[in-house]
């Protein structure tokens, strides 16, 4: 008799706990597929891991392959969410895509730390117009013209050869498209960084996540060329970034100008599980994951609320 009662108790306990688990899982069950930009990929994988831990019945597949692939896959319905590291094209939106601002990123101009005019450059900085003069117009060809000192050295201009978010946002900062950027094309973020590291007269640009080490220091061999964003002709202390922390602060306070938004592309309006995943990505918890991964920046607080409000 005692045994029966105990076993009944256990059974009922089991059924209750089983039932509640079932209730929770019934709400979120299924598969979400994502594909697209390399820049978003590491963060998305971390989100997926955490989300699957929270809802064990949900499966999330994340694959990388470029922003265009993500967009195309989302348009054709091959995946639920396309990861796109650039501004959406009107032709994409017209196909019924909802773009959700999901991550923040920044691009920094990078020079070699043995640049002959380094000292002057770090004092004076470069204005947006000067960038335009050499990267877009090809008017400036020597370091003398930028640094205002006589070093008689040519400027070795590099750019990305592959279509990418970094190049399109850097070109966007200069008011143009990637195809307008002059310079020798080098493949990939690490490739471009390595090239500038090896060329004392070189200048390139890199994504936020590539210029700092895991410990948050600037990678050795290069400097971030200060952008004189208030155009006062000199570099202010908050225009120099030697560590990730300083850079993040400048990006957060909108002090740093060359930033970009990364998007999730969803066909139609996000609903059900997909909506929940996006909400998770933009939640406090999701934000913490973004910072832990360190590949991108989270969406600033007010924007996050704005986006979430748009959903409900």
């Amino acid at each position, binding site marked *: 008799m005692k045994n029966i009662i105990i076993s009944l108790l256990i059974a009922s306990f089991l059924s209750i706990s089983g039932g509640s688990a079932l209730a929770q899982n019934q709400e979120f069950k299924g598969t979400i597929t994502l594909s697209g930009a390399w820049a978003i990929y590491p963060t998305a994988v971390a989100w997926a891991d955490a989300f699957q831990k929270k809802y064990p019945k949900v499966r999330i597949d994340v694959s990388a392959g470029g922003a265009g692939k993500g967009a195309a896959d989302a348009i054709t319905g091959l995946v639920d969410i396309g990861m796109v590291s650039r501004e959406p094209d009107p032709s994409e939106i017209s196909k019924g895509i909802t773009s959700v601002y999901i991550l923040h990123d920044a691009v920094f101009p990078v020079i070699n730390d043995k640049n002959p005019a380094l000292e002057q450059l770090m004092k004076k900085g470069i204005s947006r117009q000067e960038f335009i003069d050499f990267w877009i117009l090809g008017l400036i060809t020597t370091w003398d013209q930028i640094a205002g000192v006589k070093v008689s050295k040519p400027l070795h201009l590099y750019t990305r050869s592959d279509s990418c978010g970094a190049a399109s946002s850097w070109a966007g900062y200069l008011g143009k498209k990637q195809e307008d950027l002059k310079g*020798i094309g080098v493949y990939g973020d690490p490739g471009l960084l390595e090239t500038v590291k090896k060329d004392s007269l070189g200048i390139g640009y890199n994504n936020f996540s590539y210029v700092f080490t895991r410990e948050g220091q600037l990678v050795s061999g290069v400097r971030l060329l200060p952008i004189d964003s208030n155009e006062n002709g000199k570099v202010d202390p908050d225009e120099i970034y030697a560590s990730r922390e300083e850079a993040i602060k400048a990006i957060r306070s909108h002090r740093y100008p060359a930033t970009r938004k990364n998007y999730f592309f969803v066909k139609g309006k996000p609903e059900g599980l997909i909506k929940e995943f996006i909400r998770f990505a933009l939640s406090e918890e999701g934000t913490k994951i973004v910072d832990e991964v360190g590949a991108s920046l989270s969406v600033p607080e007010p924007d996050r609320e704005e986006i979430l409000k748009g959903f409900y």
Partner: protein
Amino acid sequence: MHISGKRIRKDAFARRVMLVLTCAISSLILLIALGLFLKSRFILSGVSPIELFLSDKWHPTEGHFGFMPFIIGTIWVTSVAMILAAPAALFSAIYLAEYAPGKLRDNVKPILDVLAGISPVIFGVFGVLIIVPWVKDYIKPFAQGYLGFIPFLRSDNFTGYSVIAAGIVLALMVFPVITQVSEEVIRSQPQELRDSSLALGATKWETIKYVVLRRARPGIIAAMILGLSRAFGETIAVLMVIGCVAHIPHSIFDAAYTLPALIANNYGEMMSIPLYDSALLLAALILLVVTVLFNIVAWLILLKVEREYV
């Protein structure tokens, strides 16, 4: 009787399955061509062929799709690679087939196999680490110092990312291919020919030059074309060292851009933008057609060789 009937049916069935598989694989090329054509029709109907093939303006977001820089760039790089690789490969093949002792040949051939089988991206990395700095620090200063009066050796490109760097990397890649095929062709020539030539008092080199090579010529040309089509379509190794600047090169030290590199660099990012996507697939179609043409020519030559001699 019953068992044998079953076996015959089995045999016939297996034959049909194999036939279907063969046909399916062979028709793949037609399907690819058709797919590329259907996708590129969009740009062909929107932009005039004159602009597509003769304009050097590449500004997709402004609607300018000039393939000229990419076509010329591809021709430049392929030419440089073939000029570097073809003679070296031919002489290596002659040496291996005619002069080399059996033991040496047995040792060198596996090395060529390995070289031919190395992944292109490794050649690309090798190019970035070794060839590009070498071009920048040695070849270019030398060429401009002593031979700067020749127009196609002058350039204001300050890096080693250039047509010549891509040409060297490609030459390294096609060299083993051309050598292997040429060696086979040369060695397959009948021994009687060599013997009679030598018996008439010709030296070994005279025999090779006037008898063996004359007869092997079509086969060697086919080997060259195979190398050429490999060089023409090579993507990643070229992309990593050529500098990817969309303008028509005027010097072997200029940076350039090739059709395969154009597709590889942009397709993943731009395939969701219809006109851009269509333009890239047109580039793919051009590549496919040219490669198929090369291969058909090589195949016809080899067919002729077989008919004449076998």
